[in-house]
């Protein structure tokens, strides 16, 4: 098991390295930020001077070497636009993004687990069909459009909740809910399918034959076994949610990392874009690793394997 985890860690490191390489090369081949940084009346000497200060005059390979050397010290360069360390800029926005992502994953879990159980125990009946239809809509609607529809209904028409910005709980409701809907639908389907799958297995029949009450069979025997593989998927969704939050942050003017990233694209602020991608990749890889560990720990069959 330790070997397995070490291998995963090693794999994560390779992925991380590849990400730095790709992001770096990709961005430096794509365009010249100097033109956007300098005023239109700048002289060629000014431009050259700026290029040298930013280290953009050296070959890409040398730039990458310098970048890696600095990166291991936590220095990802200075934002061309804000004049501050890029990593600091991104990390400053991290709490806002995490707040959004964690709230929305909690919303989807709190609703999806009971609804999934309900749907699976009433398979084929009205409750089940309603849940399935709802989840079909949830996985089919583009998340950014759900946000827009929410703004229209709850902010423009009813004027119950604010449509943009961050600060109070009221600000959090619409973005978190609209971001949660897709995962809610996905989780509901997974829980329902998992429950239906587990319920056909022998140990459920044994439990029923022993005279265990139906409630206990569902909540103890079946649910526990459904949730183990579910943890993996839910955990991985959290990582992708952090990247997917870009659209929600855009729609609700939420001051998170995603918005910073979008703004940086517009002005070709390479260090910030790189820092964003690396932070997302790091969090994503760490979550996946953590999920692996939790999975092994939860399932005694794997835990006791030699």
């Amino acid at each position, binding site marked *: 098991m330790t070997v397995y985890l070490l291998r995963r860690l090693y*794999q*994560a490191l*390779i*992925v991380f390295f*590849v*990400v730095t390489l*790709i*992001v770096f090369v*990709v*961005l430096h*081949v*794509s*365009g010249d930020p100097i033109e956007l940084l300098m005023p239109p009346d700048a002289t060629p000497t000014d431009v050259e001077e700026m290029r040298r200060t930013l280290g953009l005059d050296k070959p890409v390979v040398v730039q990458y070497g310098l970048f890696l050397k600095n990166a291991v010290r936590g220095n990802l360069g200075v934002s061309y636009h804000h004049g501050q360390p890029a990593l600091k800029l991104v990390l400053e926005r991290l709490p806002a993004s995490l707040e959004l992502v964690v709230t929305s994953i909690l919303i989807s879990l709190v609703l999806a687990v009971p609804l999934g159980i309900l749907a699976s125990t009433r398979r*084929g009946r009205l409750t089940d069909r309603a849940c399935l239809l709802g989840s*079909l*809509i949830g*996985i*089919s*609607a*583009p*998340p*950014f*459009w759900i946000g*827009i*529809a929410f*703004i*229209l209904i709850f902010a*423009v028409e009813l004027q119950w909740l604010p*449509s943009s910005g961050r600060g109070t709980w009221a600000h959090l409701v619409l973005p978190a809910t609209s971001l949660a809907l897709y995962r809610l639908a996905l989780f509901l389907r997974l829980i329902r*399918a*998992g429950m*239906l*799958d587990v319920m*056909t297995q022998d140990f459920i029949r044994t439990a029923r034959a022993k005279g265990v009450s139906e409630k206990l069979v569902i909540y103890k025997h079946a649910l526990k076994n459904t949730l183990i593989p579910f943890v993996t998927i839910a955990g991985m969704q959290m*990582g*992708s949610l*952090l*990247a*997917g939050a*870009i*659209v929600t942050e*855009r*729609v609700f003017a939420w001051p998170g990392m995603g918005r910073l*990233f*979008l703004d940086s*694209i517009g002005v070709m602020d390479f260090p910030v*874009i790189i820092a964003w*991608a690396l932070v*997302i*990749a790091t969090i*994503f*890889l760490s979550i*996946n690793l953590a999920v692996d560990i939790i999975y092994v720990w939860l399932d005694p069959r794997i835990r006791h394997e030699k």
Partner: protein
Amino acid sequence: MKNSIDTPAIHPPAMPSDYSPPTAKFLGYTYIPAERQLLHSFLTNKLVLGATLLFLFFVLCAVFAYWVAPVDPTEQTLRARLRPPIWYDRGISPFYLGTDRLGRDVLSNIIYGMRISLMVGVLSVGLSLIIGLTLGLTAGYARGFWENFIMRAVDVQLSLPLIMVAMCFMVMFGQGLGKMIIVIAITGWAEYARTVRGTVLSIREKEYVEAAHALGFGPGTIMVKYLLINSITPILVLTAVQVPRVIILEATLSFLGVGVPVSTPSIGMAIARGYEVLFSGRWWASIFPGIALMMLVGCINVLADWLRDALEPRSRERA
């Protein structure tokens, strides 16, 4: 697929308890042979039938957009800026679902936008299928160094959030329809490679593959005739799931302004433009394109669910 021993048996789909076995009424058979069960489960499922008809309708509209759309989607009619849908007092005739800020017709934009959505969906998924299939077959058949190399690349690809990879590449290449199709294809190949390799590994040791080796068939023949044919079912199921995903990804990228160029009528772009005027109560320019996209994706999702249930008996209980 003449040899029925090689084809996995397709079992009748799980039906609710009040389901009675098919009678002689259906195509004159009292029981349904495996080949017909797919068609039967299709015809008996009203939701699937409805979704198919709606999907075909969308496809026809998209293909014949030039004749179906009331006006040119890029044409700006300045006297008709921000007109509401036709059933409002201020709505005017050719603009049935209203117009946007520059007087472009919302309905025509939706119809032409669907064309882009479907095009990106089909071409991107097709391209990632070709890449993934080739690499997956190679990895499963050749083993050794190439397998390691390809599967490591798959791991790298799958351990990164899709939208992040797509965004980074789009930032690099800049806007463009062709570029986006390629970028989305690059983000999607890994799942195909993994699926195909899995299937190949599970059948490459089977007796009939060994027999083919013994009979002196070359690697090309074995790969195509045995390994490829047997991968068709999982590939079909994966494709049905990938297409709606890709369509939403296209809309998302275009909405964020890194997808198609501004002049191309895309649904994501239409929603972004409608969003600009949302706060003044002009809801139609963003809501209608979204509903259209949701219906399109919903139809494909229904078909994908049905296809998976019909083709993979083991996963039927998990639907």
